[in-house]
């Protein structure tokens, strides 16, 4: 503890009374009033004043501290929100990129579909052409077949006509020969004569009939072609 001399005590008390300037802080707790009532009163008053000042400062400091803590919390929350915003922005950008990519893919798919459609159209046209060619080939084949059939028919008819002419000529020749032998040898020609005339008549009739049939068939075939 500190003991003050009378002069110092009087100066301190006078300074406090006239200028309201007093000792502050823990030093007040170390001064021994040593039975001096006036100094004791001075110490009590200034200590109380010092405590009031400290209480006020403590309250203010607490408020500032509390506000500081709030500010720190707000800052942290703000940083968190900023981070979330940044992440959201990045996600949006990624989504946009993905959308762009998908759009490009869709465009590619559309172009590919168009290309395939064109190919399909070309294939359809080719198929149509092939069908027409096949139909033409079929017609040509049918015509060829018909021609072959006609040719065969003409050949058959020709053969029949040849055989028939040979038969006619043969029968006519034989009958004529027999009739000529009968005439030259003086034999009875009654039967052979009538037979020869009948045969010749029948043969001529048949020959003309054959010729007419052939001409008719030929005419009909040419008209059909």
């Amino acid at each position, binding site marked *: 503890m500190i003991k003050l001399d009378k002069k110092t005590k009087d100066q301190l008390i006078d300074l406090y009374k006239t200028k309201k300037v007093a000792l502050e*802080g*823990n030093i007040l*707790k170390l001064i021994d009033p040593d039975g001096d009532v006036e100094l004791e009163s001075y110490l009590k008053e200034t200590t109380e004043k*010092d405590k009031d000042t400290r209480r006020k*400062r*403590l309250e203010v*400091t*607490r408020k500032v*501290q509390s506000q*500081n803590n709030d500010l720190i919390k707000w800052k942290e929350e703000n940083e968190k929100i900023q981070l979330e915003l940044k992440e959201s922005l990045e996600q949006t950008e990624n989504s946009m990129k993905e959308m762009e990519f998908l759009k490009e893919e869709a465009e590619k798919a559309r172009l590919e579909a168009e290309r395939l459609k064109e190919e399909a159209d070309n294939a359809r046209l080719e198929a149509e052409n092939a069908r027409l060619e096949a139909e033409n080939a079929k017609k040509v084949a049918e015509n060829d077949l018909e021609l072959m059939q006609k040719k065969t028919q003409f050949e058959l008819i020709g053969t029949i006509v040849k055989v028939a002419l040979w038969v006619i000529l043969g029968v006519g020749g034989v009958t004529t020969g027999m009739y000529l032998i009968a005439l030259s040898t003086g034999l009875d020609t009654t039967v052979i004569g009538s037979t020869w005339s009948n045969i010749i008549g029948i043969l001529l009739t048949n020959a003309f009939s054959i010729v007419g049939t052939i001409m008719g068939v030929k005419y009909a075939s040419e008209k059909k072609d």
Partner: protein
Amino acid sequence: MIDSILLVDDEDLFHLVFEDACSLLDITLSLQSLTSSDEAERLFKKWFREGPAEERPECVFVDLNIIGSSFDGIELIRKINFEYGNHVVIGIISSSNESEEQAKAINAGAQFWIIKSDDIEPRLIEFRKDYDGYKNRTAPFKIYK
């Protein structure tokens, strides 16, 4: 009344709160405040090697996380207790109340753990009552909530 106290805390505003609370509660007449555990270590190193014993604080309050320092409060307590002499009452003053950290503090030689909050005075009053036990090394580790 505690002869002298050293507070190691990175928060300047808390220095003012602690100083005013100690003065109003007549806990100590001598309070020194530091903002860095490195500075505290430097002082203890000096006091341990060459400094007069009376310059050393009687009691040390250390924050758990001291921003801007090379090591935290628990490491500082370990250094003071095991490297620079075990002669001070020492503990943590922090807003944290994690049991894992408290266990580490006990291992480092902390004697108390005061939860830092706006209303620090009731805890300091209670601490003052238990102080003699800490000084005599008879009081167990205690958490002031």
